[in-house]
């Protein structure tokens, strides 16, 4: 399995921005250790990136890899919603998802 490529868009060095960064790092370190790359983008410094990505709400977390592209907005304090929104599993054992009842094979 390849690495997770994540981008976190924040607006300035605000408490909310810092909280989102801390929350995200906590989740990623606990669940994925060194299997992720995280880029933090301040839309005040890089507004054109925000335009290109159509960012409106901040903080916005984007999972670029693996596909599909997913977005989560908020300060990421709701850990379950973050994992759900990013299609990430909390299992940590790397087991495939079987919730589809095995109706098809990989």
């Amino acid at each position: 399995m390849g690495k997770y490529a994540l981008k976190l868009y924040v607006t300035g060095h605000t408490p909310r921005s810092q909280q989102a960064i801390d929350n995200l790092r906590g989740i990623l370190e606990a669940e994925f250790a060194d299997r992720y790359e995280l880029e933090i983008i301040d839309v005040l410094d890089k507004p054109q990136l925000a335009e290109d990505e159509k960012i409106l709400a901040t903080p916005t977390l984007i999972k670029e890899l693996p596909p599909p592209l997913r977005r989560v907005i908020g300060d990421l304090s709701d850990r379950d919603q973050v994992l759900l929104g990013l299609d990430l599993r909390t299992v940590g054992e790397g087991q495939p998802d079987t919730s589809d009842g095995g109706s098809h094979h990989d």
Partner: protein
Amino acid sequence: MTESGPLGIEKCPTAIDGFEFIADGGLPAGRATLVAGSSGSGKTIFSAQFLVEGIRQWGQPGVFVTFEEPPAAIRDNFESLGWPMADWEADRRWAFVDLSPEEDQPEVAGAFDLGALLPRIEHAVHRIGARRLVIDSLGTLYTQFNDRHMVRRALGRLMAAVRRMGVTTLVTAERTEEYGAVARFEVEEFVADSVVLLRNVLEGDKRRRTIEILKMRGTSHQKGEFPFTISNAAGGVSIIPLSAIELNQAASEERASFGVPDLDAMCAGGLLRQSVALVAGPTGTGKSLITSHFLTGDPAERSLLFAFEEGSSQLHRNAAGWDLPFARMEAEGALRIQSVYPETASLEDHLVHMKKAIDHFRPQRVAIDSLSALERVGSDRGFREFLIALVAHLRAQGITTLLTTNTSNLQGGGIASEAQVSSMTDTIILLRYAEQAAQIKRGLVVLKMRGSDQDKAVREFTVTDRGIRVGEPFSASGGSLLGFAEG
């Protein structure tokens, strides 16, 4: 580029046809104006045209912030109006800020705000050096996010930033009623100083667009509703400023000849130059004949005919039968015939087309045959406004004008246009059937002629292979006119 309004606030001209007149010079420069209207009232086109004319007339770049349609759809729409969006975006004269809703709603995991809104808009404005800004439309965020307090804070900050940037801005807002609250979600709280309302009202079975300036920060403006049109031919929005009719009424005392001495004599020498004459009569009495004489009356003048009843070839055959030089004049560029089916366009669009044809051909004489054909196209009110605007334009150009109507009855009970038209005309020529010695004959009378001592007799006329021939007064020979109501 800007001019001071009467009360010292700079005005930013829009170059939207007619808007400077109703806004006394334009929008408040460097400030925001709310453009509120129901769905389909033309807010987006109106606002976009403000940017378009800024680019075209003054080379001022513009930013279009869209909360609703994605830029791809807007580009297609605007390209169809002849606006070269791709070129302008490539040249940094136009930039979109795309805030249209995402197809997939993002997952929400904690508190957030709309923190990228301002940076993106400010970035776009600075990137292309925008002098004009459109935000379309302000209330949309309320439908996307449940947290109304958050949206309200974001919009408040946005409008404060717009004021700081000092770009002339149009902010659109949705209305749910044509005559009710200014805007949905009360967004006018953010842009309260200047408010323009666009309406698209159903009148009878016809739609009618109007624009009204509700207020305009510290500057004067015209009051009330003005009709407007949106058409590809006009290149977008065109406003019809009815009050302009008051501007010029100075008509000449010179005469415009019919080229027929008998007819001229009845009008004390001909129609007043730069005046408007009406020829009214039932079908077949000779309105087209009088019109044709008028168009060919002076070989030194250029004449333009708007023909709504007959095609060009039929008109040429008629003229040839009366020995009138339509063909030669047309070949020499002294006559132009625009033959149009009335039902092909709305009255507003007809008006735009006719003004364009007049401005392009620059005639000394214009004839419209007939107004009755046009009256079918719109509501009574729409027709009245069309007529006022058209007559005002013709007078402003110093054109001598002949209008015709089909009427069956002179006094009362006639079609609505007769009373309306006659109040706007300087001269009225009535054509009637008359019975004399058990024969139906045709009679003509100059009923009204401003400032002239015209012949008031009802005279018989005949149609010959040289056109009209005016004869003796009926009164002298004891005939009776048909269709004149007594009393």
